[in-house]
């Protein structure tokens, strides 16, 4: 069976007639695609098929990214690459200055052929310091993070209940996890999901 990763790699190496969209690769749903990941490298060490950093520039379909450890990455986005920025987005939503995490296949020339790129994604825990209909002030490791409610996008997940657009059950003082998109060079985040234990 040809895996999603093999298809991606062969397409980029030119053995495929065209760049193949991963979304067209049969019945692999998102979770199944992650389950189909190849053998992993040595635990504890840097993952060669992963990259982290901020976009310095964008040339054609390649993101030039400077890692926080000052390692430079070239990340190639193809038709099948999934991009996330508060939700699924197109490549045109990537901007210089965005932070990112990317997973893909490391090519022989060092470029990362991306399966997934998460732009500005953060997943932070903290105490709710204040809350209004539009904002949550989160105390995250002693620092204030201003989290914006995005109508039509932000949801709360109270334990195993279905996601709800109603955030009114959240309370000052309670501990939550907020997954969302950072607004570059600020202490502000747009909320995708608030996870609450109750």
């Amino acid at each position, binding site marked *: 069976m040809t895996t999603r990763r093999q298809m991606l790699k062969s397409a980029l190496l030119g053995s495929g007639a065209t760049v193949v969209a991963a979304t067209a690769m049969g019945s692999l749903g998102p979770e199944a695609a992650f389950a189909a990941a190849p053998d992993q490298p040595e*635990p504890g060490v840097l993952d060669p098929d992963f990259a982290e950093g901020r976009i310095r520039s964008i040339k054609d379909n390649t993101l030039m990214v400077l890692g926080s450890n000052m390692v430079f990455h070239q990340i190639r986005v193809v038709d099948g690459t999934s991009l996330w920025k508060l939700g699924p987005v197109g490549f045109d939503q990537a901007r210089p200055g965005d932070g990112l995490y990317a997973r893909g296949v490391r090519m022989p020339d060092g470029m990362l052929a991306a399966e997934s790129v998460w732009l500005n994604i953060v997943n932070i825990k903290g105490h709710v310091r204040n809350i209004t209909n539009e904002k949550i002030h989160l105390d995250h*490791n002693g620092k204030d993070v201003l989290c914006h409610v995005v109508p039509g996008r932000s949801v709360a997940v109270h334990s195993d209940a279905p996601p709800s657009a109603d955030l009114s059950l959240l309370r000052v003082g309670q501990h939550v996890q907020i997954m969302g998109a950072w607004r570059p060079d600020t202490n502000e985040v747009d909320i995708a999901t608030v996870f609450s234990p109750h």
Partner: protein
Amino acid sequence: MVRSTPTDPIDLLGPVQGEVSWFCCGNAWGPCSSTGKGACGTCNSGSLQHAWPNTSDACWNITRPDRCGDALSRRTCGFRHRTTSLCGGGSIVTTIADCGPQTDLFCGERSCCGATCASNRLIDLTPAAYSRIASLSTGLRPCEISTG
């Protein structure tokens, strides 16, 4: 014959089920930029690592999984755990690089994939590790943890 007692750490009796999330550490951007390299001094978002709630007495006093009914073994920096997603079945072996998650602050929380559920936060993976078994945008997943 050695008999287990009710106070045995649950992870010594076999794989344990709980919730897994992800956290950033090491050199980073955004709200993560001040996080540091974790309790072991080696933590990096790009490495295949995790945080465990019982790496030391000091760590245990912060995380307190026992308050949620989960006794967990003392495991120190570099110890290997395997985390398997209960959603897709993907698994990853990682090494301990930090203390966490703060289990007691989320006592009773339950995550599900369909009818498959698990309760209480028992492990946090780095973004590199988590993204090998689930999309980072899922944020939280039920999982099974065993020694790696």
